[in-house]
């Protein structure tokens, strides 16, 4: 049998293929040859063959038949074999395949090999892809190597230990003794990896964190030496000494100083020093400054230091390098709640970033701009934001529109300005406005009593121009239905009243009914509006005719409405005026409508590319208190306040019986149904069935579960399904405390993956009494439109016997009925 062709020869050959088919043919031929070679158990060329297989695997071809061969290579005594064997294992094997466990013994032997490069291969492989079982078996070996004086091995062992801890957190304790003098190493590799290891341990365990706090002075010293020491060619990057190590130390300091005054105090000086002395001309210096800023903002630093940090970010915003600007905006977004005034100073620069070419920068600038809007700058800011809305990409429009509405609601200087702003949004970005904005706006308009005439006039004019943007059309129809009398009587004070006749108005509304551009929902609005006008206009006959025509509409919804309105004309004509009366002012029972976000270190980063399921608007959170320390912003989900639906004051309770579910006012529900934006159009019927009446436990029988039970704190979840929206699960947490001391300042926080939305209502109390004498309850509502498996990460903080306790946990054991 001739020797198998060499790797580079094969690569050369394959690259000459002119078509995909030709390539496939070559590959198949070579694979066949390799397979027979494997069958012959050829030791000499196994290495060469596996290498070729790895190349073909990278091109996308299957290579699973080489898995066992990799194991044989690893077991070989030739270094070349081992090198390729381990590489193959890392590329072809993963912990899902049982085959990988066969590696364990080889790795164990190689961890004890006489040649450090072999030991290195084993450590690298284990640290890269070791499964939990492998980690359990080999943790002892890793721990041994962590104590060796050989820095080449020690640094690898440290990172391997990090991996072991990530896979099997319970093993963390065993590495503790070996960490004793890690920081006294001179070798930068060991130092760097040691800091990584310490960071991992501190982030996973509050006990470890307290234990390692004493390292702060040592870390400060090491950092100081790095900054003050002269040029060190080995570690120099553009004049900075070992930036990688500096950044890592800064991050560890951040974790150690986080909730600790003394540690924060101890690192104050060095942070100021790094912040002022680091060279900013290159990316590397800015990387260190960035990390420094993150640390300053996260620990208990004094205000002078915080201002220094914000100013660094402000300078970043002016940097030519767009990467730096991007990073600045991200960080400012995190700090805008806690250091609002400092960030305000950079407002104009931030607003300029709205015009940046980069999509990510624009998005951050938009979010930050909304966060900076306040009563003083509302007019100026809104001008900029509306201009942005006009010209931005479609992916931004929905969020921007929602943001504008919310900001306007909070800070509108006058009702007229408010209505004008809404109009502007509806006319320029009308098709991107969220469905739930329509009822919100209607409520707003209803409550601005003195502006009714002006509003209906403007909306009418807008309709004349363009009937393609559905939200605009819907709001306009509704208003015309309500205030049509003001329109034709020309009562507008704010601007020149227009002359319009009843027939013209009815023409427009009927136009909506027949237009192809109108959605069924819009048609519903139009028909109801026409009906309402029967008590406001005199041309009742025309209206009767229209309504009777639609009594035989193919659209069931329209048909039902028309039939019922017809009935109103015929049998119940005496009730008609009362039924179609002007809407009263609606109370908004929620506190301050705007959506709030549970912050994760202040991050509020929606996915830019997730255009299929647009995230609800990320509004500036107005809680500076809780920074969720959970995994990044991955799970950050807007927590939306409930606006409890209110029923309009009806003209007579008995009407409900006669008309069943028909909306009393003929319009959409005044207040939004659970304010979680759903993609369901606001049908009359849905809106009316208010929560209290129809809160049947359709999900009766979902078993409760214990979500958390540690250190005497037990948290149970009980479930309900909220009708009418089957996508919402209502979870009530019950926290109880079996220890002898109360748990005070108890705060429960939760986060869910991006496809869910979460709403956390107020807890019953923040003290969990001792010895199970009572429970703290809190309601969570989870919207799960994609019906995905529910998962949650929770964070618990409380004070127990005088010391603060904090814990993170994952809750994965939700019963299937809670999310299906």
């Amino acid at each position: 049998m001739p020797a198998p062709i060499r790797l580079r020869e094969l690569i050369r050959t394959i690259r000459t293929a002119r078509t995909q088919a030709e390539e496939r043919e070559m590959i198949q031929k070579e694979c066949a040859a390799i397979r027979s070679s494997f069958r012959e158990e050829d030791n000499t060329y196994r290495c060469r063959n596996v290498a070729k297989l790895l190349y073909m695997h990278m091109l996308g071809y299957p290579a699973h038949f080489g898995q066992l061969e990799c194991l044989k290579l690893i077991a070989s005594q030739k270094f070349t074999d081992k090198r390729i064997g381990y590489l193959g294992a890392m590329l072809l094997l993963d912990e899902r395949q049982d085959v990988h466990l066969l590696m364990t013994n080889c790795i164990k032997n190689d961890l004890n090999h006489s040649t450090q490069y072999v030991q290195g291969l084993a450590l690298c492989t284990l640290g890269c892809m070791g499964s939990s079982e492998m980690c359990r078996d080999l943790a002892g070996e890793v721990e041994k190597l962590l104590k060796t004086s050989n820095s080449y091995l020690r640094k690898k062992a440290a990172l391997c230990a990090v991996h072991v801890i990530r896979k099997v957190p319970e093993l963390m304790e065993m590495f503790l003794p070996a960490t004793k003098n890690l920081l006294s190493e001179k070798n930068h590799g060991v130092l760097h990896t040691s800091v990584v290891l310490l960071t991992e341990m501190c982030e996973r365990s509050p006990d470890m964190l307290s234990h390692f706090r004493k390292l702060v002075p040592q870390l400060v010293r090491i950092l100081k030496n790095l900054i003050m020491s002269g040029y060190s060619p080995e570690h120099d990057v553009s004049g900075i000494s070992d930036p990688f190590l500096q950044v890592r130390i800064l991050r560890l300091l951040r974790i150690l100083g986080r909730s600790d005054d003394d540690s924060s105090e101890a690192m104050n000086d060095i942070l100021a020093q790094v912040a002022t002395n680091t060279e900013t001309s290159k990316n590397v210096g800015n990387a260190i400054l960035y990390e420094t800023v993150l640390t300053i903002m996260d620990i208990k630093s004094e205000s002078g230091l915080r201002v220094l940090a914000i100013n660094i970010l402000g300078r970043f915003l002016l940097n030519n390098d767009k990467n730096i600007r991007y990073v600045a905006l991200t960080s400012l977004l995190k700090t805008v709640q806690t250091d609002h005034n400092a960030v305000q100073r950079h407002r104009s620069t931030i607003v300029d970033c709205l015009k940046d070419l980069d999509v990510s920068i624009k998005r951050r600038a938009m979010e930050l701009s909304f966060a900076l809007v306040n009563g003083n700058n509302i007019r100026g800011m809104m001008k900029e934001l509306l201009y942005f809305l006009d010209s931005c990409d479609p992916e931004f429009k929905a969020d921007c529109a929602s943001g504008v509405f919310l900001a306007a609601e909070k800070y509108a200087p006058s009702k007229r300005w408010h209505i004008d702003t809404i109009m502007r949004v509806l006319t320029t970005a009308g098709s991107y406005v969220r469905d739930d904005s329509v009822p919100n706006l209607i409520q707003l308009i209803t409550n601005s009593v003195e502006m009714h005439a002006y509003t209906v006039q403007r909306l009418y004019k807008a309709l004349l121009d363009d009937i393609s943007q559905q939200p605009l059309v819907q709001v306009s129809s509704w208003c015309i239905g309500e205030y049509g009398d003001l329109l034709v009587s020309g009562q507008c004070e704010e601007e020149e009243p227009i002359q319009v006749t009843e027939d013209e108005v009815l023409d427009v509304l009927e136009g909506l009914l027949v237009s192809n551009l109108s959605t069924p929902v819009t048609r519903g609005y139009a028909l109801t509006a026409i009906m309402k006008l029967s008590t406001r206009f005199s041309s009742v006959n025309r209206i009767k005719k229209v309504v009777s025509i639609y009594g035989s509409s193919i659209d069931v919804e329209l048909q039902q409405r028309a039939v019922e309105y017809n009935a109103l004309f015929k049998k119940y004509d005496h009730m008609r005026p009362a039924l179609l009366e002007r809407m009263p002012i609606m109370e908004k029972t929620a506190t301050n409508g705007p959506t709030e976000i549970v912050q994760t270190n202040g991050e509020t980063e929606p996915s830019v590319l997730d255009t299929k399921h647009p995230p609800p608007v990320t509004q500036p959170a107005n809680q500076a208190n809780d920074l969720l320390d959970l995994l990044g912003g991955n799970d950050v989900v807007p927590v939306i306040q409930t606006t409890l639906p209110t029923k309009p004051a009806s003209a007579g309770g008995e009407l409900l019986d006669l008309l069943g579910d028909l909306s009393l006012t003929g319009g959409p529900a005044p207040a939004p149904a659970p304010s979680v934006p759903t993609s369901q159009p606001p049908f009359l019927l849905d809106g009316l069935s208010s929560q209290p009446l129809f809160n049947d436990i359709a999900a009766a029988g979902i078993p409760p579960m214990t979500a958390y039970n540690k250190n005497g704190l037990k948290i149970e979840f009980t479930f309900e399904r909220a009708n009418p929206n089957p996508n919402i699960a209502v979870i009530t947490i019950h926290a109880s405390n079996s220890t002898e001391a109360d748990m005070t300042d108890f705060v429960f926080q939760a986060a869910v993956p991006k496809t869910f939305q979460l709403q956390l209502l107020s807890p019953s109390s923040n003290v969990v009494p001792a010895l199970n004498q009572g429970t703290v309850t809190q309601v969570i509502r989870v919207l799960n439109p994609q019906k995905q498996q529910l998962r949650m990460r929770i964070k618990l903080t409380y004070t127990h016997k005088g010391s603060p306790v904090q814990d993170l946990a994952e809750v994965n054991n939700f019963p299937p009925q809670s999310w299906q």
Partner: protein
Amino acid sequence: MPLITSICAFPLTTHCMQFMLLFSRQGKLRLQKWYVPLSDKEKKKITRELVQTVLARKPKMCSFLEWRDLKIVYKRYASLYFCCAIEDQDNELITLEIIHRYVELLDKYFGSVCELDIIFNFEKAYFILDEFLLGGEAQETSKKNVLKAIEQADLLQEVRHITESAWSDSV
């Protein structure tokens, strides 16, 4: 549900590099290093999507983008894109430095490295990467030390093969 979310959003790691991909301007993969366990199918899907996304970026855009719930840091060196996926807490700017350091190492090793070097010597590109990063973190911050280790390991291949000739012949 996005694949990465199902794996990476929930392990309790707060910061790590999840994977590194090298690909050409035509979207051909030249190196893939995964630091999280995923099936071959999932890796292929992620690679395909990410390559498409990065290649669609215009030159004026910044080196960072949000993708699923990860941060992607990428930089083009000549005809090769170097692309890293990091988690939310990680420092993007220092990741750029990590990428740059790796390129420098390759450059020193191959002598003015170009894409062809990485195509024909992909296994060496992996060896160098594995001496620089371990489990997604830098294990050695001195360029000199990484290159020295590679050099010694290369020698070891030759010394142990007294019956065979040098590496390039045996493979």
